[in-house]
């Protein structure tokens, strides 16, 4: 079992103990228990700080490409929302027909371009996910 799970269990137990302490024994005991919990957390984090500098973290598999895809996905969502908002404003008579058609055409064009880019990077992305998952399994 990983140390993280133990830390979580211990923290949870201490919080319960602190609350119980506050209720039954008074605020000073609760403060003392909070201090004990914080001290444990400090020791664990300092150990992780030292470990991180001593050991190379697991290899990052072409994260840049993955992020690029995420950005494209986000951009696509923004463009879709923008088109919906334009439709919404038009239907609420806040946009002239002329502006509505011009704006929609522009945003549709941009959305289609982004969708093409996403399609082109599709296979690589699946491989990336597989590679990331494999790396994660190895590290555990």
């Amino acid at each position: 079992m990983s140390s993280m799970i133990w830390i979580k269990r211990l923290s949870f137990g201490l919080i319960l103990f602190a609350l119980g302490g506050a209720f039954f024994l008074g605020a000073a005991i609760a403060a003392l228990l909070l201090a004990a919990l914080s001290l444990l957390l400090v020791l664990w984090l300092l150990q992780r700080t030292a470990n991180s500098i001593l050991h190379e973290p697991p290899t990052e598999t072409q994260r840049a490409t993955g992020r690029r895809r995420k950005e494209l996905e986000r951009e696509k969502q923004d463009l879709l929302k923008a088109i919906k908002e334009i439709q919404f404003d038009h239907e609420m008579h806040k946009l002239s027909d002329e502006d509505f058609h011009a704006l929609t055409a522009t945003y549709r064009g941009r959305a289609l371009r982004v969708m093409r880019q996403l399609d082109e990077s599709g296979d690589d992305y699946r491989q990336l996910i597989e590679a990331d998952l494999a790396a994660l399994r190895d590290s555990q």
Partner: protein
Amino acid sequence: MFSNPVADFGELVLLLTLIAACYAGAACAAGARRRSRRLIESGLQATYATAALLTLASSVIFFAIFSNDYSIKYVHHYSDATMPWYYQLTSYWGGLDGSMMFWAWLLALFAALAVYVNRERHRELIPWVATILMGVLVFFLLLLIFAKRPFDVFLTAPPKAGKGLNPLLQDPYMAFHPPSLYIGLVSCAVPFAFGLAALITGQLDDSWLRSVRRWVLVSFFFLSLGLVLGMAWAYHVLGWGGYWGWDPVENAGALAWFTCTAFLHSVMVQERRGMLKVWNVFLVISSFLLTMIATFLTRSGIVQSVHAFGSDPVLKMSFLAFLGVAALLSYGLLLYRLPLLRSRGQLDSWVSREFAFLVNNWILLSAALFILIATLFPTLSETVTGTRINLAAPFYNLWMVPIGLTLLFLTGVGPLIAWRRATPSHLVDQFAVPISAGFVTALVLALIPGLAARTPIFHEKLQLPVALINFSLCAFVLASIGQEFYRGTQVRQTHTQLDFFTSLVGLVVRNKRRYGGYLVHVAIVVMFIGFGGNSYKQETEVTLEAGQQAQLGRYTVRFDGLRTEETIERRSLIADSTVLIGGKELAHVTPAKWYFAHHEEEPVTHVEIRRGPREDLYLTLNGFDAQAKLINLKIVVNPLVNWIWIGFLLLMFGTVLAYAPERALQLAARQAKTAAVGSTAALALWAFTGVPAYADEMHSEAHEVRAAPRSPTENDIFHKIVCMCGTCGRQLLADCTCGTAAKMRDEISQLLSAGKTAEEVIAHYLQKYPGESALAMPIDRGFNRLAWILPYGALLAGIGLLALIASRQRRRTATAPIVPTAPDDLTLGARLDDELDDLD
């Protein structure tokens, strides 16, 4: 020499935190530059460790407070065993040293949270975000270790008892107000760090804004909460009958609120139109710097306030140096990166939502600048002329009332105008109903006698029926938002074919940001209704013997007798009284003076408030003569005041709705089987009317009987001269409850009785005190003219700047290349249509 292992341990933890913060910042910066993942990861872990270390340090001081360890000076000064545990807890931030530590703790927690949440999403930015936040934390830690030591101990035998928290702070609102305000102020550091990290890395696309927007919403929420809790505290504790007194410390807390509100609007323009990139970075930088200025003003002693922590030259110089370096670095970086911050979009029309947001941003920033300059003006005048020139509430109201009304108007206009361009026929279609609603309201109210009370704006000589305009604008805004909901629901109904209510719920859930924002706008309107009531406020001061009664409005107040009550915490002197309406007894009321243990010289006024949706009856025991059985009672009728608090509850709901994750709302909507934040908000907070922080130096209240104003002339003078006690923040004589104010009022009464005119009395005070320091508003001449010129100048400069930005953006329109649209691929086009349908 006395030694205390708890204090030693606390100091050691602070020292370790400093080392960890320095390491975290340095490792992250070096890792980012050398692209070393080891260094970055180690730095991020150290960032988390600083949060844990400061939690440990805070736990140590909690332990010292709760175990009544008076060998620690801080505990002795601000806590006492006679206080209940929750007030002992609040003593953690009740003094200067503790408040700085609380600030640092919150900053470390926010830094850890911001890094943890965004470590994958913004991998390039995060090391720099951590570096910047750790840089700010190091500044506070240095102050805690070398200047303001919360673990400092007595070198001799420790005292047997504590002094206890200032009595004014022993109030439930004070248990929540400072933490709320601090969360709001400190959380502004995160958007600042993201903005700076984006400038450093050059990754200035819109992605960082998406993360930052939610943080700013958190800041906005907690700043609003802190400010409103402060107003509520001032209203029910200070006893002057109002809720916002333009005290320098109140003002300081509101500064960042304006820029956060401006950002929440302008970020929409960047997201939608790719414009205002420079402006948005400028706003996040400015918001942070304003929070630091607020901290500086409260703690350096540069301003005189009932809420300030007192004068401290070391803090003053330290904060000035930090502010200078931070401003130079951040604005310098912004200038350096200007070429990367070119707008994608352009301003197509002056009649567009973009332009409405530009105007809204300009007004919000002008409001912040005006308040900043006016708050610092007494210090500026003292530096230049040698005498302090005060700008009290009447001066602020001249400016902030019209600014508030303009923002209220824009709250209604913004939702009605479309992005890019609005045609005349569409404008008629959109504005017909709201404008009619505003006009009808104005006409109806104008027919009711007394509702068209005139109030000065911009200058004392320009008087307009401000309350009537306010209520008409409220009607205009409510109609515009109601129309938005109605038409939006109708549009959705045509798509979903569902009933009206289901479509309305679906509309809000699918567009929670837009409609949550509209709810915030409704909340602002409700608050403005409450502010409007201030124009019809009635007040009087009477001296009563037992059995005598006084009349105000529809209320009669009868004084029945004085009595005392004692508990462990305090001794109370109570003026038993009865409130009657039309001869019928309504309630037994008990306005009182409270004398807390160890603070007998600082009695606290216990205000009696009879609350109602129409008005509050507000009774303050200003003074008494126990031997003669006489009391001096201030009676105030505050119309509509409770709508401010109701409006705020609505504001909280709207903000949470706008913030809530879409999935959560969709889930809620499914389970029910049914189915533009920020604006202007609160100008509320300031528009007509506090953010009381708290303090270790307060003015001392009078308890002798004070004379009520005997004539309108006397009352008028009480509103033109300020209290000269030096610690109350130069409150008006009419409002201040301290001994100095009482003596000044007596003196004025005597002067008038001796046949002096109002002008001669004012001349007497001009002669008695240096310069015009006794006046609430400077005389419009010489150097003082600057106080008048600056706001007008800022107003004109803003208009000029706005016109310049708009015309530049419009020129760009003519030359902007037209982006060719790709021809619709039929299959891809069909997929796009499907995805668009899924969004319904």
